[in-house]
């Protein structure tokens, strides 16, 4: 099976600073992949590079293939034909990502006007249907509203409606629920989950929260310091993380849970600070904070793939289930 979206050796740089380095991953048709990482890890830039929407001063190299088309080398015209049609994106801040001076219906139907050449009237009607699909109870009324008249969750649902308008093969969702309240986040995630199922499209969900990704996705890619450090199925990553960073993240995540009391105990934590974008150490980006560091870490470890699992570490965690915070205390 060939991948629907295939990223190979993708790098994004701003002048001399490399913000994303040699990132490779695949997303199959209908597959849901989670991309996790912290601020500065390069996860959002990776998505923007795939969309061809990097901001001024940023440039991408490597290869991004959608089906059998190379996107990075494609003409701007061709990229525009694909954007919104074959590949769509949902952004983090639904307030600023929607145009404040245009009505919701107008913005939701726009994709159809661009790619299906619908008339204004027809796009308007289609937008109302789309709003109904993302669970607006009075779609006609909301279609006539402006973004500021909607709540955060409603805005994000409208964004999703616009993304699914042309039945894209892949949806990239960049922290779609980070700006939302917990209960609203749940609702938006459920909606996204259902729509992706119905549409049968692939999803690349970018998040900083491993739990969110584990609920929605089949597979997880972990990024740190502009690189992919580990990837695998959700169960592989949750049950046997092999990269020390993934493992530590997971340990914290498990210790901090709504369903288990840990009152007053020390949480397993990762020492040090997150390297800021572009200012990564030589070799493995995690070495400064890693308790499994060895001499070899000063050289960047190669990405080793075994089946659908990949890892870039000289001294990976082996066997056994991760201790849930054993080394704390």
């Amino acid at each position: 099976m060939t991948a629907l979206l295939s990223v190979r050796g993708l790098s994004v740089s701003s002048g001399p600073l490399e913000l994303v380095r040699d990132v490779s991953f695949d997303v199959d048709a209908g597959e849901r992949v989670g991309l996790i990482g912290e601020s500065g890890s390069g996860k959002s830039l990776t998505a923007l590079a795939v969309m061809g929407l990097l901001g001024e001063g940023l440039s991408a190299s490597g290869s991004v293939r959608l089906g059998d088309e190379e996107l990075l080398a494609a003409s701007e015209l061709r990229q525009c034909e694909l954007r919104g049609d074959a590949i769509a994106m949902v952004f983090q801040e639904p307030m600023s990502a929607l145009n404040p001076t245009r009505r919701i219906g107008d913005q939701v139907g726009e994709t159809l006007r661009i790619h299906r050449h619908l008339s204004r009237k027809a796009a308007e009607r289609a937008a109302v249907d789309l709003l109904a699909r993302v669970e607006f109870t009075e779609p006609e009324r909301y279609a006539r509203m402006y973004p500021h008249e909607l709540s955060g969750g409603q805005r994000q649902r409208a964004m999703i409606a616009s993304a699914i308008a042309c039945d894209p093969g892949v949806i990239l969702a960049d922290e779609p629920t980070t700006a939302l309240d917990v209960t609203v986040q749940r609702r938006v995630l459920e909606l996204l989950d259902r729509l992706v199922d119905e549409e049968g499209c692939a999803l690349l969900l970018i998040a900083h929260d491993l739990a969110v990704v584990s609920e929605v996705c089949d597979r997880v890619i972990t990024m740190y310091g502009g690189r992919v450090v580990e990837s695998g199925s959700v169960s592989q990553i949750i049950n046997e993380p092999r990269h020390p960073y993934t493992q530590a993240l997971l340990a914290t995540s498990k210790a901090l849970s709504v369903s288990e009391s840990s009152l007053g105990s020390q949480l397993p934590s990762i020492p040090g600070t997150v390297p800021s974008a572009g200012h990564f150490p030589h070799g493995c980006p995690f070495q400064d904070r890693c308790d499994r560091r060895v001499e070899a870490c000063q050289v960047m470890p190669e990405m080793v793939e075994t089946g659908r699992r990949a890892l870039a570490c000289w001294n990976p965690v082996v066997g056994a289930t991760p201790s849930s915070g054993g080394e704390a205390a």
Partner: protein
Amino acid sequence: MSADESQPSPHRLPPRGEARGRLASSLRGAVSALLPLARRLATMVVALFGASVLVFVVLNVLPGSPAQVILGTQATPAAVRQLTAQLGLNKPLVSQYFDWMGGLVHGNFGISYISHQSIGGQIGQALTVTGPLVLFALLIGLIIGLPLGLAGALRNGRVSGSFIGAMSQLGMAVPSVVAGLLLIVVLTVKLHVFPTSGFPGWSDPWQALRALVLPSFSLGMVEGAIMSRYVRASILEQLRSDYLRTARSKGLRVGQALRRHGFRNAAIPLVTVVGLELASLVVGAIVVENVFSLPGLGLLLLDSVNNRDLITVQDIAMLVATTVLVLNLLVDLSYRLLDPRLKGTA
């Protein structure tokens, strides 16, 4: 405080009386849409009143009577007293103020001490020159500023963009006096393309327009330079906005996205700029008319100052101040029309 009201699930806290709430809120909506408008109008009336008091007080507190000025130093005290009474200048200042204001409100600008002509008529005559001058200058400013600013934004970070930036920076530093004099030197004195100065009147529209070309350019070029900087900043902001990126993620090319999503939003701050520019053009016309000896409001104002024709000065100052304040008001209101977020805000 915007509560996230994404359709509360049924078990949430008790709903308020839905229907009653909606009726009340639509009523409130109507009131709250008009109230700020009324409030804004009221503040302008207050500002106009304040401005008129200011003008009146400054021009009437000085020692020495206008009658003395008019009649000259040789005049007998009796003659001065008589003229003072005739002009109504022996009344208390407050009633003089209300006489003046009352006249203005009814469109009666009074009679000049000096020329004994109706000031209203003189101002009307002058406006036939100043009005077109300001409009042409604005047009020139827009014609220069809009494309230059747009190009500057689209070429940002390239050499051509920096060049455009430098040119507008330079343009802003050239006062209209300098621009006017240099245009005269080059186009009139050396190349004889345009008439030097003066105004032939509108009886010959072609000659009248010719006489207005250089003044309009010297006034408009500077404003164009200023405008281009605002346009550039405004478009750049749009280009960097999240929603423009969203538009592009839907498959629009940069230019299309800018046209569909950027221009309207960019126009919002630009309306302010155009309004303020118009105000500064009205004031700038005072200078340019003097460079080119155009018989407009500026020349009339300056002549009145030199002749100590204070009523005329008072009238024109008030007229200009009113124009500026009304333009400010219009800018405010148009903001509200263009930006749906501001509907009904104070």
